[in-house]
């Protein structure tokens, strides 16, 4: 292996892969360093990608030229859009993945990417010089020099696996942890915390009686995540069913009786676990009135017998787990292939990062994924693409401005802003309720929001960008035509609409018709026939696929609300986007409370808006900052 790269990415999980791919797309000589080159983008927990907010992130990654959507499409064995009956902003595309094929597809992508080198190795320390990152020290004593690095350690930093009383130092089941890097990160001045997460038991498919469960099917007409897969055979793999079962009184009883053996309750686990992904112990304790909890039974692939019991994560002893699993309808004979386990790991409090995901204490060092306290493959990948891009940009300093996505632009932007501004005290998961501009952030609008930006930086290759932006332009033309095409209440039209249950008494436009709740949008094409003047646009309307037609309809129906949110974004921008210089001396500012100074120094907000979101920074303190910034600006002008 060479001893010098422009960018090194440490860790080959979901964050690391996207980071390395992004850096390589920008043409940087990039090294992806991982302890096991066969384990790229391994799905260490559930065999699925996407869902609410997460599905939007996958689309955002795709819109920025990332790999996750394509890999998920090509390895998908059940596609389902959650909230399909709701408006487009809150629909969440999700796929059940073949874990093995997901890993293979990602490996293929990484290996086929020019200027990206994949190598095995474990990093034990970062090397600094002249106030910035200079390279990395590996466990075999060798060093790699680099301009910038992205560290994505996932659950490996001092990872500790718990199954009942048993504890093992592991980063994932059966894989060695990163033991010494934590100390080194502390040495450069970072403050570290400890988080906990868990994963449920895996059982053998052949040992299950699915006739006692409810079948959960995918969508009849699956929609891919990625733009590229629209022009490929899709879905590529045979589609499978999932199953739904539930806990029973006996399960709850077993859990209560054995609670003292759960390290979560005995106090052996100190790391904080996520509330949105509670262990079954937690659910039983916190919601004692609930007679049962759902268990989703999900195959982990086409060629594997492994099955994931979603909803049953726990850390009870393996023997108790077997009793619990077998008290569940359909799982009476279940053979456990791997018990559920909890894992504790070190993370870096993310308020020590800039919104570029660069460590403030050590320029050139970027962090992404679970090391920043998040959970979830999509959250990791979303940070990965931003960190990888910014590391690549930092490696050739001053070339162009870093990639920072706004809260109104992307869920990735919401997430990173939450992380670096608010900090965290539990593993962070994206939810649509975290986004104040939720209506602007639909999965279907990701390309309109991000592709032009991605293409400009060089993340999206020009041909793909052209195809994507061409479609956006097409949709805009169709929307415009529907807004202007008029509909007069002549006899024929009135009768035709009456047959659809839509009374028409005065002239309107096709868009006006679409906004009427009683109008069935699928009738649009028939009604529009002969009413759109430009034959090219009329043909474009006819050629829209189901998703595109749905999007045009929704954008017309929701345009009032969209305009309202867009106006809010515009109002927000002026003083809140005022930049705070990195070197601002908070301590010297008269009138700031000790608490505010401490918080501001710790979080180092980049903008006035971020400052205002930090818990403990009062509106008065923000006013004071505004005054100071204004004065500075005037002094520098004078």
């Amino acid at each position, binding site marked *: 292996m060479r001893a010098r790269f422009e960018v090194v990415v440490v860790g080959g999980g979901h964050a690391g892969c996207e980071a390395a791919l992004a850096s390589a797309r920008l043409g940087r000589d990039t090294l992806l360093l991982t302890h096991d080159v066969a384990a790229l983008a391994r799905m260490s927990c559930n065999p699925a990608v996407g869902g609410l907010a997460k599905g939007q992130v996958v689309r955002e990654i795709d819109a920025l030229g990332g790999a996750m959507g394509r890999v998920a499409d090509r390895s998908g064995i059940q596609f389902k859009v959650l909230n399909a009956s709701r408006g487009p902003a809150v629909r969440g595309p999700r796929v059940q993945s073949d874990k093995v094929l997901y890993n293979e597809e990602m490996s293929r992508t990484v290996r086929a990417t020019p200027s990206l080198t994949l190598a095995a190795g474990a990093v034990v320390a970062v090397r600094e010089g002249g106030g910035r990152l200079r390279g990395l020290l590996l466990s075999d004593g060798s060093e790699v020099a680099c301009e910038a690095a992205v560290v994505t350690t996932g659950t490996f930093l001092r990872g500790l696996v718990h199954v009942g009383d048993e504890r093992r130092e592991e980063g994932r089941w059966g894989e060695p942890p990163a033991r010494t890097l934590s100390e080194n990160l502390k040495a450069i001045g970072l403050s570290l915390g400890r988080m906990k997460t868990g994963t449920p038991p895996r059982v053998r498919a052949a040992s299950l009686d699915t006739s006692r469960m409810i079948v959960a099917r995918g969508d009849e007409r699956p929609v891919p995540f990625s733009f590229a897969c629209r022009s490929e055979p899709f879905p590529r793999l045979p589609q499978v069913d999932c199953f739904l079962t539930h806990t029973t009184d006996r399960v709850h009883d077993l859990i209560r009786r054995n609670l003292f053996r759960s390290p979560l309750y005995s106090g052996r686990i100190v790391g904080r676990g996520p509330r949105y992904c509670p262990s079954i112990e937690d659910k039983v304790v916190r919601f004692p009135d609930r007679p049962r909890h759902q268990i989703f039974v999900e195959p982990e692939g086409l060629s594997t017998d492994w099955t994931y019991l979603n909803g049953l994560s726990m850390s009870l002893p393996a023997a108790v787990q077997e009793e619990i699993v077998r008290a569940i309808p359909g799982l009476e004979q279940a053979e456990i292939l791997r018990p559920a386990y909890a894992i504790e790991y070190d993370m870096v409090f993310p308020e020590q990062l800039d919104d570029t995901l660069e460590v403030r204490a050590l320029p050139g060092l970027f962090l992404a994924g679970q090391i920043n306290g998040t959970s979830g493959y999509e959250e990791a990948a979303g940070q990965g693409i931003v960190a990888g891009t910014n590391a690549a940009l930092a490696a050739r300093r001053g070339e162009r401005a870093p990639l920072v996505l706004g809260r109104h632009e992307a869920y990735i932007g919401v997430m990173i802003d939450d992380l670096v501004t608010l900090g965290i005290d539990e593993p962070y998961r994206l939810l649509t309720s975290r986004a104040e501009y939720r209506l602007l952030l639909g999965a279907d609008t990701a390309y309109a929001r991000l592709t032009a930006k991605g293409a400009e930086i060089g993340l999206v290759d020009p041909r793909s960008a052209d195809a994507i932006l061409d479609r956006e332009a097409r949709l805009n033309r169709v929307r415009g035509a529907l807004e202007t095409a008029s509909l007069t209440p002549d006899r024929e039209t009135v009768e035709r609409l009456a047959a659809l249950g839509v009374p028409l008494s005065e002239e309107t436009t096709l868009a006006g018709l679409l906004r009427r709740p009683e109008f069935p949008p699928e009738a649009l094409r028939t009604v529009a026939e002969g009413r759109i003047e430009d034959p090219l646009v009329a043909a474009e309307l006819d050629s829209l696929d189901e998703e595109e037609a749905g999007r045009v309809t929704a954008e017309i129906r929701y345009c009032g609300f969209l305009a309202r949110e867009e106006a809010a974004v515009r109002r927000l921008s002026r003083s809140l986007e005022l930049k705070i210089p990195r070197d601002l001396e908070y301590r010297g500012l008269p009138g700031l409370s000790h608490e505010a100074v401490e918080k501001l120094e710790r979080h180092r907000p980049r903008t006035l808006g971020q400052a205002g979101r930090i818990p403990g920074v009062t509106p008065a*303190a923000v006013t004071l900052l505004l005054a100071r910034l204004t004065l500075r600006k005037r002094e520098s002008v004078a």
Partner: protein
Amino acid sequence: MGALVADREGTGDVIVAPATPPGASALAIIRLSGPPGAALAVARRLVPSLPERPEERHALVARFVDAEMRPLDEGIVLPFEAPRSSTGEEVVELFCHGAPAIVAALLSAAQAAGARPARPGEFTRRALANGKMDLAEAEGIAHLARSESRGAARRALGLVEGELSRRVRAVREDLLDRLAEIEAGLDFPEELPAEGAVMRQAALGKAQAALSTLVSAAEGSVARERVSTVTMVGRPNVGKSTLFNALLGADRAIVTPDPGTTRDAVSEAADLLGTRVRLVDTAGLREPESEAERIGVDVARRAAGLADVVLLLVDGSIPPSSEEEAAAKSFGERALVVRTKSDLPAAKPWSLAAEVAVSARTGAGLEALKAIVRERLGSMENDGEILVLERHRDALARAAAAAREAAGADADEIAASWLRGALHALGEITGETATEELLDRIFSTFCIGK
């Protein structure tokens, strides 16, 4: 997001606020500030005669109208172009007569024309943002910052502490619960059944009812905050100024035996058995003989028109005139007929029923008069709450409107967007933000997560 409530809602809006202290005074100044063109556009709705491009820093005498174009007052309008103004934006100052009702009507008219009430310190913030303040002034703000813990929100809360604040919090709790239900359903569709529009409508009924009660309470309270006005009218020399001074306990109005001495309305803060009122003395009610007196009588009519209680003073020693009878009729329930000079023998025949007789000279009946006025004012208050500022009323009204939209929305995510708006508006009163609390609520209420 919530900490920066003041900025979230529009740095580009036209804001309006009185620049003079509340209560009656000879003059009041209302200030509008906004982007170039926008403040003038609002001003033009209040001052129809304002030219398209008025000369900056040039005072114009003009008629002010209310939202329905009804004349309100005559005064002076003074425009400032950006950046040569106190805030660095386009500023328009309106100088009007200092009757609280006129000020209130102009503020409502400005809002109807698109301005919104300024939040505390907002003029200052804009001035800072536009570089209109120097270091010394900025440090004045620093001092302010030191003295408060949660800033403007806490200060606002201090004003509404008590019953109103308790009720705002209760509504907020209720809205947060409803929003948590909706959000949980949106983010965890596999674990929670969708509620649907009908359920949502029913669930929001309680909060909506509570909000509309709050809005009416606030409206009553805003009306009260301008300090009730008690205006004295009566024929010349009936003894208005003498009574005015007696009630005030000071020689404020000029008292001479010449009729028509008081040409302007004279007003003073007075304490009527613990209730603070504005006491207004006016020119006499009779056909004016001079131009000056004509203006005085006009002022008297207008002042009486805006009063909460009109003390119609009648001289007990001479029979009531037709003007007095007409006045009693036109002021209706607001009129309180007071027979003055009760130390003199009563005249006959007597057609007006006096409720109280006083003698400013002996002091007889003064305490009774004060008690009756106080009782009258008291009966106009609704449920004895603490004052609500104009912008609190505005926030409540916005919250109520948003809750109504949420109940009527046909999609949960749209309803959620409105509910966030409602909570945000209530947060301007209570100083609380919703996002983290909302997540806490979702996770503690629903068993979520696979």
